[in-house]
């Protein structure tokens, strides 16, 4: 399979860190942007992106394609996205297995779907149409969910596996999302990891979440917890080439803390590689 070249270790590009990134040139291999934040006419966001793009590879990650919505695809959105792709020339473009609204509304959240044949056919068809429009393979991410539907006809991993194979798209494995959804719905995250087609995984997301006791919420506002690091190691054993990154979207720490998380990621990978070589 024709896969994008691995990028190494990245971070989510967030405005709070622009100046530090440009001044200190940190040891980060690549940055991921939230596509919609740069789908604006001009000003500082695009100016900063252009400067950072000059020195680092960029991956575009969207939150609003609403691939699972039963509303029509938003072609204006896709045209704007295509224009940004043209400007940024990203290594790849990703979005989620989720919907954000129907009847013209956009709730700015990644909403869950039932894992049914109908939903699978629907999302596969839409991914194919988007790929045809953008003339590139999409990278699709598993979302965190807080409810599971009684009407589901298959497991999430069965859904994801068939989805990426039928749509011939690639996979962004969010390790924290697997952990959060696994906890919330009572499945073993390892079962998910074992089931997804490792050969299609191009990227890992790692992030922190909030533990509310009876359920966990994907908040991206704290460090990655030890349980998710352990799951990352298992994911890395299955997908040695996947590019990996830390997402942080709130309660922003000093940049050095994110670099320390990347260092931990590198150390885990070195350990995994060492074991395999031994």
């Amino acid at each position, binding site marked *: 399979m024709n896969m994008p070249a691995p990028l190494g270790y990245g971070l989510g590009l967030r405005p709070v860190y622009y100046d530090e990134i440009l001044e200190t040139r940190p040891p980060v291999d690549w940055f991921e942007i939230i596509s*919609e*934040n740069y*789908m*604006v*006419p*001009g*000003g*500082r*966001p*695009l*100016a900063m992106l252009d400067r950072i793009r000059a020195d680092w590879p960029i991956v575009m990650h969207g939150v*609003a394609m*609403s691939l*699972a*919505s*039963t509303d029509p695809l*938003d072609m204006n*959105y896709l045209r704007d996205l295509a224009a940004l792709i043209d400007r940024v020339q990203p290594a790849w473009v990703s979005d989620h297995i989720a*919907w*954000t*609204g*129907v*009847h*013209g*509304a*956009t*709730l*700015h*959240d990644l*909403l869950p*779907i*039932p894992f*049914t044949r*109908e*939903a699978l056919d*629907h999302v596969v068809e839409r991914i194919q149409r988007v790929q045809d429009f953008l003339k590139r393979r999409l990278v699709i991410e598993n979302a965190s969910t*807080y*409810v*599971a*539907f*009684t*009407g589901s006809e298959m497991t999430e991993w069965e859904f994801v596996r068939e989805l990426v194979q039928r749509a011939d798209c690639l996979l962004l494995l969010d390790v924290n999302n697997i952990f959060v959804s696994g*906890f*919330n*719905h*009572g499945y073993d995250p390892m079962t998910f990891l074992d089931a997804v087609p490792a050969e299609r995984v191009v990227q890992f997301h790692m992030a922190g979440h909030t533990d*509310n*006791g*009876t*359920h966990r*919420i994907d908040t991206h506002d704290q460090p990655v917890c030890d349980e998710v690091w352990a799951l990352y190691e298992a994911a890395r054993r299955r997908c040695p080439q996947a590019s990996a990154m830390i997402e942080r979207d709130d309660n922003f720490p000093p940049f050095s803390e994110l670099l320390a998380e990347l260092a931990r990621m590198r150390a885990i990978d070195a350990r995994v590689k060492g074991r395999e070589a031994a």
Partner: protein
Amino acid sequence: MTLAELQARFQAGILTGEGADMLGLVEPSPHGAGKNELFGVYQNAYRLRLAEFVAEDHPGLAGYLGEDEFAALIEDFIASDPPRHRNARYYTTRLPQFMQESEAWREEGRALSLAQFERALVDAFDAADAPALEIGALAAFAPERWASLTFAFHASAQLLELAAGTLDTYVAATDDDCDELPEASEGVEHAAIWRTGDEPAWRELDADEWVALNEAMAGQAFGDICQLAAFQQGDNASAERLAQFLANWFSEGLVVGVAEKDAG
């Protein structure tokens, strides 16, 4: 139930804050969380996220209204209509219009003006780029042609007529060290908002500059603007003052193009 029916019901449950319809469709939590609680994650996230968007874009309005009244405004706004734009950046665009149309808020002149002013600042922040022209660009035109010159302005440039005291209120309400807001006053004031470099900029305009800049931004030639000023202000309209306005617009980065009106 089809996917479309499920999504319609799920969305209605988030927008109305009522989740009862959804509860029969979701699995029980393996850890004892109530179905209400789990669906509530989506309901709460929706309101919190939208409230954050409004708070980020309107610190002055928040400071002016105070915590409770600002929260009430946000609640009314969120309840009025769900977001329609894919980009969260544009959620608050409709706030001033919502306040104008709302019985509860339309009489709140200074609050409405603050919303309009902060809206313009947000729009200026990421308006389309264009390099500012230096005043030296005028040298390309013979002095006898200057009366026919028209000017193009940066896409971020906006002129607003605001309730008197809005600008001072904005300054006070966004200053952490300031405890007192200006007293209410009658009348109006005018402001220009634009972007200089990466950051939004603004300043209050005197009445004659407000008229001149309005006309210039509408595409009137400089000579026509001078004539209008003379008609409106008689002897008080000095050519030097209008020339100074023009020099300021250049130096402040407002002007991005100049052309002769008849040049087509």
